[in-house]
């Protein structure tokens, strides 16, 4: 028996389909309660992961591979935390509809609240991690402040747009294609290394110049997170060029630095992309355009698939 009837266009009943922020807040509160219930350290656990990453990466990149970046731990955290926000949000949003099958199948509700709650949940955790970062930065008498800090605002907007778009896309796709969650996991790992988090973005710059692709440098920022990460580093880490010390001069003579020989010998280690804040706004602009496309794609996909969630689960 095959299908001869073509479905007549239907109008969805106007149930409680509109997204209410209070519901999202309640779902986040629920997740936080459930997650930390019965654990002695509670919230401290959400700090455990970035601390572990900090220790391991500082050891690997700072001591074993001898990164030329001074204060490597601080540099790492400035870019890592916003990445954590995206990665945590998207990974948990991917399974959010599945994990709440009981709700989706039995309660009329705006489904979009579920991936949004995942983003909110990740937001709370990462916000806590940021508090720690700020405390550490002040503790080691790192100078925070200045106009650069304002870069955080557009950077957060770009990161949020991209995160919400991806969360909607992957959560909706995963209901029908469970491959999505595995693909997301793998892609997140690969994507992490595309961003200048454990290495300096100058590596990309010098490499591209060396290959004669200098004019294509902007394409690197088609990955919106690259712009977000460098802006965060500019805002928090701050130091663009570290004045040379003898040890650094030796490193600066390595092949990778040949192309930027134009940099005065007095300033051998360039850590961040640029001293001009306009540069950061430009790359964020590129990223924002891409993020908006992702958001539009995510929202359309979610809207199209969500009517059948209860059936597909």
């Amino acid at each position, binding site marked *: *028996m*095959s*299908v001869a*009837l073509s*479905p*007549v266009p*239907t*109008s*969805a*009943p*106007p*149930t*409680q*389909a509109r997204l*209410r922020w*209070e*519901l999202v807040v*309640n*779902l986040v509160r*629920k997740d936080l*309660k*459930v997650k930390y*219930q019965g654990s002695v350290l509670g919230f401290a656990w959400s700090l455990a992961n970035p601390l572990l990453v900090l220790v391991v990466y500082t050891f690997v990149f700072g001591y074993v591979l001898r990164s030329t970046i001074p204060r490597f731990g601080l540099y790492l955290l400035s870019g890592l935390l916003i990445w954590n926000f995206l990665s945590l949000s998207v990974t948990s949003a991917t399974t959010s509809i599945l*994990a*709440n*099958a*009981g*709700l*989706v*199948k*039995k*309660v*009329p*509700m705006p489904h979009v609240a579920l991936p949004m709650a995942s983003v909110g949940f990740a937001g709370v955790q990462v916000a806590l991690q940021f508090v720690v970062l700020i405390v550490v930065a002040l503790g080691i008498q790192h100078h925070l402040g200045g106009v650069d800090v304002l870069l955080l605002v557009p950077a957060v907007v770009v990161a949020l747009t991209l995160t919400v778009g991806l969360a909607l896309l992957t959560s909706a796709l995963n209901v*029908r*294609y*469970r*491959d999505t969650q595995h693909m997301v996991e793998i892609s997140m790992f690969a994507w992490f290394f595309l961003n200048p988090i454990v290495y300096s973005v100058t590596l990309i710059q010098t490499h591209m110049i060396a290959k004669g692709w200098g004019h294509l440098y902007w394409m690197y920022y088609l990955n919106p997170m690259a712009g977000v990460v460098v802006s965060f580093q500019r805002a928090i880490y701050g130091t663009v060029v570290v004045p040379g010390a003898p040890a650094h001069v030796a490193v600066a003579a390595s092949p990778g630095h040949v192309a930027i020989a134009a940099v005065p010998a007095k300033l051998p280690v360039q850590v961040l992309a640029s001293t001009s804040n306009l540069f950061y706004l430009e790359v964020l602009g590129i990223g924002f355009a891409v993020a908006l496309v992702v958001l539009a794609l995510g929202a359309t996909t979610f809207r199209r698939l969500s*009517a*059948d969630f*209860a*059936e*597909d689960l």
Partner: protein
Amino acid sequence: MSQSPVVITATAVGKRFSTHHRKATSLKERVIRREQGAREDFWALRGIDLTVHQGQTVGLVGPNGSGKSTLLKVLSGILRPTNGTVAVSGRVASLLELGAGFDGELTGRDNIFLNASLLGLSRRETEAIFDDIVEFSGLGEFVDNPVKHYSSGMYVRLGFSVAVHVNPDILIIDEVLAVGDEAFQRKCIDRIEDFQTHGKTILFVSHSASLVEQLCSRAVVLEHGVVSFDGEPELASEHLRDILGVDRVQRSRKVLGATVEEVVPVHAGTGEVTWTAMPGDPLRVEVLLTVTGERPVGELSVRVAFITDEEDSPAALIEVGAGVVGNAAGKRRLCLDVEHLPELAGGYTLLAQVVEHSDGTVLATARSAEPLRIQPDPAGRPIAVMAGVRVEDV
């Protein structure tokens, strides 16, 4: 009554389910399925036209599998109709399953806030009605215990209490009320009558003809996804009795000859018969049956349900699933896999019914020899029952 505004309109609503026990959930499967082509479909609802006016209390009755729950889900916006249109105006509170919208890990208190917010209330609005909800539910101090430790009766009391206190315009209730004790049922009925006097619209599914006659101004009988009667509750009950035809079961059994030899719960991993299980466990229900097929009959299907075994509560029926077993004569075993047992501790007798697929005539009924005991689970897991089905010749 005809002057009051229309709040629910369903026009030519149909709902089709694909009969794959498992839909393609990976790209690979999707590709393979596409190659195979042919897809069997099952229409749970066909050409439903229903208009409900404000203030009406409509009872929805019909045999198991006639599409009552599907209709409620379509009307509450959970399922999208395959064709036709549905229009509902006003705030809808629906109570479709025990503990739907509850998180086992959270306390009753937290769940009240979560559930009310799912139903569209703000925190402040919820705080204003919180004490009433707790009082009506009769949970007392238990409200600060995690709901995973609640009995099924407590679940339904809390769920109903939240649903009626959020001041919905339309209340949609599936058969959940049967679980509460008599005192609570009385309270629910009072509350429903209170709703009626306030001009609220109520739509509910019940297997109790007397309850429908007592409460409803109108009853709709569904049969194989089609409205077969719409009118006076008394007449509806009569019509329903005709459909179910207790005496006809006896007659047809002699001719068609299907017998259920045993119904046993089996541990999904080891394949051994087990009478105790934990919530969240996978479980297989095996039904051994013989079809004698003395005259050509249509396809037969087997339905499996859990019936509560507690003495102090009226029987509640949880449908687990059904499988088509064909009509060839012989002995066969139907294996129904429940992915996760619901988080409802207690004793349940397994009920298996062999029915004629075309018209729902019951050919044979059997219960498990012992009740299956679902133990309280300290870990607590979300509620979800659903099953994959397999039939083998033996």
